[in-house]
């Protein structure tokens, strides 16, 4: 895979040359692209080789040269549970969801329980707009096969790769659960008012306000060793109702993340200087971009779109998601190894 930051004419030339690719860019830039084997999502925030950038003209492109086949699918909210049905026997799926849409909501709430969701890597992100355009413009996804855009559907690119290339999906999460009380919610959803605080009935908004919690810090849950963040969007000081960028899950135990003294520095060291980073599919959260002041700063070599939510099987917040194609042993050697065992 190869990451490129291109102007629309360069992107069009690649598509017309038959490339299989995923794009991120402004609505205008994506709408200018010709039909082909690609999907795209709207954002104007990027991590580029020279650092974080806001750009309305150019497109971030990941070329998937290893693809032996690719198929784009557009799924309505009612069809989303079928996301695994069209995938190839060996490969991965890349999914884009428009922020604030039913497709986004349903994937976040119901996706974790869909049969087969974890059987093959599903990576992607939630598309957005410039923050100054929130409420005036809708985030969109594009299907390159038809050239159509959608504001309430998932665009999915199923990619086939040779068995010698093993897709590995992983996350980089700066945050760990802090030493504050366990917060448990009675219901699953993008908002909550009631919760228990170390087992005592309480109100989540009042807890956060009365304790002066820095709401740039996400709530963190432990999923058998994977730290999963839920970020705070808003607190209603009257009712204590808190709105989140991803759902809290009923019965799951959350703690406010450990504070980070040097957010930008921790981010750079957390992401590491992975030599392969520039050949990976990756995306990072707009909240990390804002809170860590990443504009003009590099994140350990990882480049990609800056997003309104990240997907590594499930919806995540404030997390860097990365997918690498690892070279495994050649097929003939794998067969010989299996026969010898």
């Amino acid at each position, binding site marked *: 895979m190869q990451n490129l930051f291109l102007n629309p004419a360069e992107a069009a030339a690649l598509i017309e040359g038959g490339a299989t690719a995923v794009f991120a860019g402004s609505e205008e830039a994506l709408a200018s692209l010709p039909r082909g084997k690609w999907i795209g999502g709207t954002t104007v925030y990027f991590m580029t080789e020279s650092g974080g950038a806001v750009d309305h003209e150019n497109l971030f492109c990941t070329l998937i040269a290893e693809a032996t086949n690719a198929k784009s699918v557009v799924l309505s909210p009612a069809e989303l549970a079928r996301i695994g049905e069209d995938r190839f026997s060996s490969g991965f799926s890349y999914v884009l969801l428009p922020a604030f849409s039913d497709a986004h909501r349903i994937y976040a709430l119901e996706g974790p329980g869909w049969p087969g969701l*974890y059987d093959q890597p599903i990576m992607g992100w939630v598309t957005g707009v410039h923050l100054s355009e929130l409420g005036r413009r809708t985030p969109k996804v594009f299907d390159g096969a038809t050239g159509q855009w959608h504001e309430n559907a998932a665009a999915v690119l199923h990619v086939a790769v040779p068995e010698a290339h093993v897709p590995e999906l992983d996350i980089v999460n700066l945050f760990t659960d802090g030493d504050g009380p366990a917060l448990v919610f009675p219901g699953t959803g993008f908002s909550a008012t009631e919760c228990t605080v170390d087992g005592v009935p309480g109100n989540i908004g009042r807890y956060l306000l009365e304790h002066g919690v820095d709401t740039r810090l996400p709530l963190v849950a432990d999923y058998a*060793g*994977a730290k999963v963040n839920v970020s705070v969007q808003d607190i209603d000081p009257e009712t204590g109702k808190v709105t989140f960028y991803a759902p809290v899950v009923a*019965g799951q135990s959350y703690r406010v993340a450990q504070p980070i003294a040097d957010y930008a520095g921790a981010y750079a060291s957390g992401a590491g200087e992975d030599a392969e980073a520039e050949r990976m599919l990756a995306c990072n959260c707009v909240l990390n971009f804002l809170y860590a002041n990443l504009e003009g700063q590099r994140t350990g070599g990882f480049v990609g779109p800056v997003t309104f939510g990240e997907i590594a099987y499930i919806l995540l917040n404030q997390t860097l998601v990365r997918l690498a194609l690892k070279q495994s042993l050649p097929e003939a050697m794998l067969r010989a190894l299996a026969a010898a065992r």
Partner: protein
Amino acid sequence: MSVPAPSDPRWGELLSGAKDPAFTALATKLMVGRLRQQVKQQPAVLPKAVEELRHYFSTNAFAQRDLALI
């Protein structure tokens, strides 16, 4: 490696959190984390959760390293 039978006590230990192996695959972590929370909420769903995990481990070659840890 063969997948343990549904009645094998290792499933209950894993899903109660009594046993907490250091899994390597993100998919395994997310799946086990989700099923643990479901079983904690509703212990009666344990057999269904075990079946889901058995299916996952028997279907996915990439999860064999994690299967060896349970």
